[in-house]
């Protein structure tokens, strides 16, 4: 059996899950605790990839990533490589469409935090950043776990956006969800079955681990 789609999917899901907090945590923190003009706009803008059909998003990204668009052209200048239909492109796309799935649960758990804890932190002299790392984060592990479940699951299963910006290039952008689709279409049921049979238990184990973390935290 061809392992590359499974490996690609795993790589994509892990990369996304690891990279996304860098963007999502500060955004969630801002949305939960700060008041600033244009907040509801930012909020809606971040949530957009969630409500947009993957094909619409994929279309938008396809245009942006193309060699004629600014992003695609700059990328080609910087890295000497075509962006669209590359693995980098699907990672980027995955980060973008997963952003709301990471921000929303994080934000919800930040907002649910007992406000007295933040009051305590400021009484004890902590700055907002210090309070974030020493008080908010450790008390919101549940929310973070929920966020990673969603993100991991999503990047493992995403199909529409990746099909649009990645095409289906073997070894580069043909992730498991696409490979399974094609295998089913080509009536190679045994291949489809084998890949699913591997994907499902692996996802399951990841899910169980995250659930365990989640429960320990409660």
């Amino acid at each position, binding site marked *: 059996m061809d392992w590359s789609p499974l490996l690609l999917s795993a790589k994509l899901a892990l990369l996304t899950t690891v990279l996304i907090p860098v963007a999502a945590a500060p955004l969630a923190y801002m949305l939960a605790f700060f008041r600033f003009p244009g907040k509801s706009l930012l909020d809606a803008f971040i949530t957009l990839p969630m409500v947009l059909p993957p094909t619409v998003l994929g279309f938008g990204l396809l245009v942006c990533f193309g060699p004629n668009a600014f992003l695609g052209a700059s990328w080609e200048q910087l890295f000497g490589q*075509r962006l669209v239909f590359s693995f980098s492109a699907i990672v980027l796309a995955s980060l973008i469409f997963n952003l709301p799935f990471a921000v929303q649960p994080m934000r919800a758990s930040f907002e649910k935090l007992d406000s007295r804890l933040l009051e305590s932190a400021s009484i004890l002299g902590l700055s907002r950043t210090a309070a974030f790392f020493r008080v908010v984060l450790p008390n919101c592990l549940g929310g973070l776990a929920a966020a990673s479940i969603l993100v991991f699951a999503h990047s493992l299963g995403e199909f529409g956006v990746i099909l649009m910006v990645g095409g289906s290039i073997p070894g580069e952008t043909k992730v498991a969800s696409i490979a399974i689709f094609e295998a089913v279409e080509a009536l190679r049921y045994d291949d489809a079955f084998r890949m699913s049979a591997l994907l499902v238990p692996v996802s399951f184990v990841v899910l169980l681990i995250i659930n365990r973390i989640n429960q320990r935290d409660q």
Partner: protein
Amino acid sequence: ADLLVAQAANFMPAMKEIIPVFEQQTGLEVDATYTSTGKLYGQIVNGAPFDVFLAADQRRPDKLFADGLCSEPFVYAKGQIVLWSLNPQLCKGDWTKAAQHTDAVKVAIANVENAPYGNAAMVAMQKAEIWDAMQSRLVFGQNIAQVFQYASTGAADAGFCAYSSVFTEQGQKGCFVEIPQAPDVIQAACILNSAPHSEAAAKFVEFLATPEVAAIKAKYGYK
């Protein structure tokens, strides 16, 4: 991989046999991706890194050539559509009757815009003047492979499939009727100018003209 071929979905059964032979002869590793001709064309226009494009029509390779995106196209196969079904009742007699049989609640056809085989099916139905009557029964697959999937799982009662799929293992499990009104599907191929592996691409195109390939194509009903 040493070569990346973008092929129209209908040619997939034949390609599955062609690739191992080519790999054995040249020692090159070939990857292939397939979907409808229109989708592949869209991806090529947007910069997809394919080497060879095996289309299911002549129009799109010609267009690529006109836009300076590929070398001169050549015809590599002529295919046909058939009406395929799991239900033996539907294979008795004329295809227009079969398509309008009471058992044929849902009939699958490929996207008429992107898939030349879907287009051919539409043309045939229009010629037979049953296109309008068929509308309520039609179910659309994204490419000819999905059409066969719909038909072979029984989700659709019949499907306008590529003749080549009749010769597959699954295809043997059902029956089919021919569609005389349907035009031959003339399929052209070309090497892309942006091909990352142009040498291997040239070798592959050369290989397509060999008797071995001709034998495989004949086996799958291509002319």
